[in-house]
């Protein structure tokens, strides 16, 4: 009979238990107690481990995400700084280039002011014909707007002689450097009583000079390394008093009355940007030997040796 009743009213009984049991539990657990009940212990045992694990998981994922966000922000900031750095580096480089250009132009302008005896026009170096050892053997100039430029005219800078215009076509001019084997410049060493000619060797950054002493009394003053060689103006191409180079090797080769020295050029052709073309120069007829048309940049006639312009310097 009980079994039939239980089967018939099973759902009702279940409902009553499900509704009454919590109320009883609430009544029991709602009172002030000191000890933990069996139900509470059981619930704690069921829920605590997973609570701890989930707390660790959430904390770990949270830390990972925070680290990722921080790293992303750092990476973004880093990119921004790199971008700014590139811009600043570019600006600094541009400023340095402009400052160097300005200094060169100021020197050229100063030189033009000092050189009253001949007229010059500025030209920009637009190309360098280089040898396989990175030695410049020819320059190309942009002579647009430079009136009076003709073939054979001297090309100089405030540092000294560069060469002469070999070919001219429209706004473009090719310059044969003084180191070219075909080049010849009448030269002297001020205060040493010698005259001679400087010839190119067509190799490396060097040329040679053959000097002859003007009189025996001057032989007591030998030429040495570092002595600057200047133009005399007698070749009617290069004005007098322009530095060609300096003696790079002290021991000369003797050939009859001539002493041949190895010279290093005064001008660094590889870094030339602007030059002056000497126009309207009619030669230094009647000028005394070694008397400069322009003030030489090293009036003492002896210069400090530039290691980059010595024959033994690496290319």
């Amino acid at each position, binding site marked *: 009979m009980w079994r039939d009743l239980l089967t018939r009213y099973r*759902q009702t009984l279940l409902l009553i238990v*499900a*509704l009454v*049991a919590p109320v009883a539990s609430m009544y029991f*657990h709602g*009172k002030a107690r000191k000890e933990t009940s069996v139900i509470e212990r059981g619930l704690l045992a069921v*829920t605590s481990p997973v609570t701890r694990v*989930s707390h660790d998981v959430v904390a770990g994922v949270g830390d990972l995400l925070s680290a990722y966000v921080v790293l992303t922000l750092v990476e973004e900031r880093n990119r921004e700084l790199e971008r700014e750095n590139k811009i600043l580096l570019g600006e600094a480089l541009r400023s340095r280039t402009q400052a160097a250009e300005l200094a060169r132009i100021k020197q050229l302008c100063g030189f033009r002011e000092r050189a009253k005896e001949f007229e010059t026009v500025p030209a920009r170096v637009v190309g360098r014909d280089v040898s396989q050892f990175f030695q410049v053997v020819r320059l190309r100039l942009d002579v647009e707007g430079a009136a009076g430029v003709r073939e054979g005219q001297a090309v100089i800078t405030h540092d000294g002689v560069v060469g002469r215009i070999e070919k001219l076509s429209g706004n473009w001019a090719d310059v044969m450097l003084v180191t070219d084997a075909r080049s010849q410049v009448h030269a002297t060493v001020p205060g040493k009583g010698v005259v001679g000619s400087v010839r190119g060797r067509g190799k490396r950054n060097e040329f040679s000079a053959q000097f002859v002493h003007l009189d025996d009394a001057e032989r007591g003053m030998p030429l040495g390394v570092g002595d600057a060689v200047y133009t005399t103006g007698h070749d009617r191409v290069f004005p007098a008093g322009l530095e060609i180079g300096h003696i790079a090797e002290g021991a000369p080769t003797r050939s009859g009355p001539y002493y041949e020295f190895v010279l290093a050029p005064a001008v660094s052709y590889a870094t030339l940007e602007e030059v002056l073309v000497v126009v309207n120069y009619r030669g230094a007829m009647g000028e005394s030997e070694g008397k400069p048309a322009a003030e030489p940049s090293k009036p003492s006639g002896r210069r400090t040796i530039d290691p980059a312009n010595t024959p033994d310097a690496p290319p």
Partner: protein
Amino acid sequence: MKYLAWVALTYLLLALLSPLLGRLDAQLYAPDVALISALYLGSRLETGPAVLMAFVVGLLKDGFSLSAPVGVYTEIAVLVALIGRFLQARVDLVSPLPVMASSAAISLLASGLFLAFESVFHRAFDAYGEVLTTALPLALTTMLVSPLQFWLMERIRRRLDSHAHGNLLLRR
């Protein structure tokens, strides 16, 4: 099997919810996942199994929140399951909007029940203001989460039912 999966899902959600919302500093806006489970169970099962499952789910919630006397959430879950049974024939508890509306209404009702049970059975209870102020935010967050949880529980039911049906066909 599906009963076990539903309980496991609720257990997992309850376990994850507390630290997750603690991390986000949003404990006050924790959706009542046990209540949503009870509503779903009431709307999908017969009275007996629905009440039994809601009892287990409520007990789990009691286990995770021991500040209230054990039995408060169990009682609420059982009552919500019965309400779900009642609503099942009257409201379409499949589409998201009815589910959301029902969840929000039942959450507000649950807050009222909680307040009533606490005031009656919990001698040390004095947080009436907190319960009243969090009732609405709790209802809103529960409302927003309910369609997703219904969808998850429905997917579990379909997956396990089809699996059981396949096994039955294989046996025949």
